[in-house]
């Protein structure tokens, strides 16, 4: 187990290094460079540019800049926003809880509903319910999330006036009920897509498992159907589903970004889109790195979880 952990940890570090190099490279290879916005502005003189460059260390060779920046990332000095000069770390980490709240709630809900639908469709294979859920999932996966969110706002916030249209809480109050009411629409929109994905994944994983010999053995032992499903099939399903959860993380983070922009949910996604408008590169880079970090970390956790539920993994089987 220890060797397995060390191996996966080393892999994750390599991935993060690669992620940072690519992100940093993208930013510096871009036409106009990090200061493109300044150069367009006629009130900014060439001297100003030089001064800003020196201030942010942008006049040094790219490799040196990268090393400095990477060291900063590592030690918690993520630089300063081009606008307002605030600590990037503070800006970004301030937004983190809102994003995690949205993502966590949606994922939890989607897993509960999606896995249930998936199991039912696998067990009642080729039934009307199976077909209906397949078609519904396919259409759900085809909806542009941002448009679907706007539609939801139009219907439930503006026309029916049941729920608030955006934000985490009302400006006046911020009690629990109010926060929950704000959470409903964004979570519903984000989990809608996730439910569709998870119901499909679970269905195919379940179908695969229900055809395995050991399920037939369980039946031959005279076990109850519910016990076979919940104890034998679901247990075998756990490892592939956890792995998928890890692999799905980039999509979840991406989905959260889209949802946040539509619902003005003050998380990292909204911050990213706002920073994008201002070409605030230190902030963009930090968010890109944090999201990639979350993905790498999530995958690492998923692998460890799989090793815990499936004793074959750490020995190099499965």
């Amino acid at each position, binding site marked *: 187990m220890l060797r397995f952990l060390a191996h996966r940890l080393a892999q994750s570090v390599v991935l993060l290094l*690669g*992620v940072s190099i690519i992100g940093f490279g993208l930013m510096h290879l871009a036409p106009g460079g990090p200061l493109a916005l300044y150069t367009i502005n006629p009130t900014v003189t060439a001297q100003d540019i030089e001064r800003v460059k020196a201030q942010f260390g942008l006049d040094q060779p790219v490799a040196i800049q990268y090393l400095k920046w990477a060291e900063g990332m590592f030690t918690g000095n993520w630089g300063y926003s081009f606008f307002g000069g605030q600590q990037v770390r503070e800006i970004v980490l301030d937004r983190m809880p809102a994003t995690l709240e949205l993502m966590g709630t949606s994922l939890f809900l989607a897993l509960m509903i999606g896995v249930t639908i998936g199991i039912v469709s696998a067990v009642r294979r080729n039934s009307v319910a199976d077909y209906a859920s397949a078609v519904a999932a396919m259409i759900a996966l085809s909806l542009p999330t941002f448009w679907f969110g706007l539609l939801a706002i139009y219907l439930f916030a503006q026309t029916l006036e049941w729920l608030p249209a955006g934000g985490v809480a009302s400006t006046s109050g911020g009690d629990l009920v109010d926060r929950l009411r704000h959470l409903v629409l964004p979570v519903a929109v984000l989990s809608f897509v996730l439910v569709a994905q998870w119901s499909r994944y679970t269905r*195919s994983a379940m179908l695969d498992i229900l055809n395995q010999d050991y399920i037939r053995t369980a039946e031959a032992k005279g076990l109850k159907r519910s016990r076979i499903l919940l104890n034998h099939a679901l247990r075998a399903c756990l490892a592939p589903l956890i792995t998928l959860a890890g692999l799905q993380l*980039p999509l979840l983070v991406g989905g959260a970004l889209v949802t946040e922009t539509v619902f003005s949910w003050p998380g990292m996604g909204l911050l990213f889109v706002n920073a994008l408008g201002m070409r605030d590169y230190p902030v963009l880079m930090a968010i890109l790195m944090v999201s990639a970090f979350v993905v790498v970390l999530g995958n690492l956790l998923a692998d460890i979880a799989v090793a815990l539920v499936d004793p074959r993994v750490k020995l190099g089987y499965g």
Partner: protein
Amino acid sequence: MVDVPAAEIILPRPAQRFGALRRLLRHRLAALGLIVIGLLAIGSAGAPWLAPYQPDDIDIAQRYAPPLSEGHILGSDDLGRDVLTRLLYAGQVSLSVGLAAMLVTVLVGFAVGAFAAYHGGWVDIALMRLTDIMLCFPSVFLLLFVAAFVTPSLASIALMIGLTCWMEIARIVYVQILTLKSADFIAAARMVGAPSWRIIFRQILPNTLAPILVAATLNMANAILLESYISFLGYGIQPPAASWGNMLTNAQSDFQVDPWLAILPGLAITLAVASFNFIGDGLRDALDPRMRERSAGALR
């Protein structure tokens, strides 16, 4: 041993191909998807002849005409432009961005996957690590990040989407080729001295085609979704040119003034994307029965 005439062994192949097509058409939703895509493609390509107006015909007197009103079947927008006309022209842009992006995806993905698998060694390690690394980025973030400092055009958007979405195909090709590499008929081709490129194009490409085709179709759906989102945010196709995504730029306010204006382009996107997803699903079933129960759904 009884001698089996050679013809008997070779015969089944063409029959199987027709079988795949028939299976695809029997998949009702895929057939429906093909029809819808066909109609959308004809409508968009034939926009100059089919559309009742020019896409930038402004008519201030007829702003926000509701659907089914006289002269504007699907209504008009904030500048009095005909919505149907703009939807058709936008279809040209959105579908071609999707198609071009898909081509880039397949090309880059195939090149990376094939090269890594075929070459092996450090090339393999470097390229597949790169693929892993790229997969860590949520593609929407990466795409927006790049889109923000590139002057948007149809080509650049397609290129950007393609360059942020090739990893899945690279992995498919990589795994397929690694499997094939050890297959006997490749060894046979090597033994008779066929050059590498020839083996790749004559033996490996046809054998990896089925999974690539499926992935490409699903990628097309994904590309249309991504284009719509970055155009909606204003980093994609720039007005006055219309794409389904940028027709939704003002959707938030449009919903209050004239909901149809915000609903129709979204429906067009959903219709196109769903059709490609259904076709992809049908293709998966038709081309390889073994893949039938694999996970479905487009990546976004």
